[in-house]
């Protein structure tokens, strides 16, 4: 009666090209990445680039910018541009390394808690809560005072502080994916828990967490800046942005640039990282929803 009954299924067979165009990340995203890339580039290659020694003192103190000293000199006659660049080394190392450690430990805690639930979840989250409740500054102070004021210990301090927050966020993300049917499907196929975590959960959790880690790095850099401002980061004369802001404090009225330049660089770097993280997150969120 109906010719439709035997009609071929033309389109189920032919998968047409996806009409979806990738969402553009926008101009500001590129600008943000460019800034972060520039800061990283200068920090990495500072010693081979024609940049003066950041700790070399000259008689000419508190100079205004000139061709010789791009950003002038500070109260001890050190080149401000060189100090800002070298300070970037400390800030970026602490920022990225601490969050890498935080992701490794906090991420593992979060995935395990979110995947297995039950008792192990309660124990791990209790640990995270205790860590969150402990005043971060006091903790950092304790680590740096007892273990010594160097790059490694500052990194460890900030890493430990970042763990509970990362664990919570990773756990929440894991929970949403662990309840999806594809995890159940993998189970019915006989996949082991390890395989499910590695193949089904991690690739999904990695994307929002990757985007979030930009913001975490920004927070870690601010944290390092705070510690340095309080004189708790690496020892002088090693330049750090926070330390430079602090050094310039006494000259705020006459030479505000001494504090403002490192502040601006810190601000722009943190802003760029936040912006890039937000843009990435927004992009992958929509991708997931519009599936």
């Amino acid at each position, binding site marked *: 009666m*109906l*010719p*439709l*009954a035997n*009609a*071929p*299924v*033309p*389109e*189920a067979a032919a998968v047409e090209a996806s*009409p*979806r*165009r990738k*969402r*553009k990340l926008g101009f500001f995203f590129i600008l943000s990445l460019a800034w972060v890339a520039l800061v990283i580039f200068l920090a990495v290659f500072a010693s081979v680039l024609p940049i003066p020694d950041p700790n070399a003192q000259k008689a000419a103190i508190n100079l205004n910018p000139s061709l010789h000293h791009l950003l002038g000199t500070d109260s001890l006659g050190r080149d401000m541009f060189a100090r800002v660049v070298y300070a970037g080394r400390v800030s970026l190392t602490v920022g990225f390394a601490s969050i890498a450690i935080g992701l490794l430990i906090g991420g593992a805690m979060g995935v395990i808690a979110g995947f297995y639930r039950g008792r192990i979840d309660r124990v791990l989250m209790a640990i995270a809560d205790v860590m969150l409740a402990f005043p971060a500054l006091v903790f950092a102070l304790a680590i740096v005072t007892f273990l010594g004021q160097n790059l490694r210990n500052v990194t460890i301090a900030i890493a430990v502080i970042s763990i509970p927050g990362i664990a919570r966020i990773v756990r929440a993300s894991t929970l949403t994916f662990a309840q999806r049917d594809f995890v159940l499907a993998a189970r019915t196929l006989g996949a082991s828990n390890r395989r499910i975590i590695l193949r089904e959960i991690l690739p999904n959790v990695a994307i929002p967490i990757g985007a979030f880690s930009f913001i975490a790095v920004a927070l870690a850099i601010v944290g390092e800046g705070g510690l340095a401002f309080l004189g708790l980061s690496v020892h002088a004369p090693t330049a750090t942005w926070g330390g430079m802001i602090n050094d310039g404090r006494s000259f705020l009225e006459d030479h505000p640039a001494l504090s403002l330049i490192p502040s601006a660089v810190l601000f722009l770097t943190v802003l760029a990282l936040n912006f890039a993280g937000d843009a990435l997150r927004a992009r992958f969120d929509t991708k997931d929803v519009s599936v």
Partner: protein
Amino acid sequence: MTDQPLLVVEDLVTHFRTNRGTVRAVDGVSFTLERGETLGIVGESGSGKTVLSRSIMGLLPPKNVVSEGRVLFEGRDLSSLDAKQMRAVWGAEIGMVFQDPMTSLNPVMKIGNQVTEGLRVHLGMEKERAIETAVALLRSVGIPEPERRMKQFPFELSGGMRQRVTIAIAIACGPKLLIADEPTTALDVTVQSQILNLLQDKQRERHMAMILVTHDLGVVAGRTDDIAVMYAGKIVEKAPTRELFTQMRMPYTEALIHSIPKTDQPSHTRLPAIGGRPPDLVNPPAGCNFSPRCPYARDNCHHEEPPLMSDDTVTADHAFACWYPVGVPVRG
């Protein structure tokens, strides 16, 4: 009052501007609804039926939307009204029932306040009278112990009860038109039939006109005067309900009706499926939108778009958009 139709929709167009291009969600829809009449709008997901009902109501966000055409409600062009004037229409003259009663009810407001709100705002009732009216309304939509329910919050009610509450709210101010958008899709089948019966009773009792938007032809089959079938943003066939089922002309309507598994067919009956999937509304196919999936399509179907037309084999109220309608011998 007058003999003009209650609702006239003329060439309504709603396009959304997206990153991907313009989505032609509603693409030139016209129809007329008389007082007390019921119209079923049927379509699959992405056919534009929900966007159409929201466009009629003026409920779409103004951003990135292209709207054209006119919606005349008792002769007034709704699209020319501002937000304040529209608020006087919503609830008072046009009532709405949505798919998910949990989202259309305010979760932190007691049922009683939600029902009396419209009565007090639109009809200017005193508090005492509004409460009395609300209790009577809730009772009339089949809610047991309405006095007690007035003091409860939406989450304390079952899905069916919540939908009864939204119906009570929608009809509270005696609207002349009720738009119900998939009112029973979230409900179980035994509750669904209760709610559909309730809507039908209220529509008759109050002589309201009703637009019932649904994906399920079974929902509208025995309950509407006319049915409009939508496909890819357009009405492709509109006919009196009985005639649509017995003398459908548009191949899509035919396919839709026949692909539903029916309980009076023997088990393992092979279903006539429509191949493929609905078109991408950003790049609709040339000619008839259904032509790529249509078993009867010929060359010109892929180039020329058929208008909504009628012929002498059907009644005057019956229109279809097809060059080679089913059940009609091809002429020439």
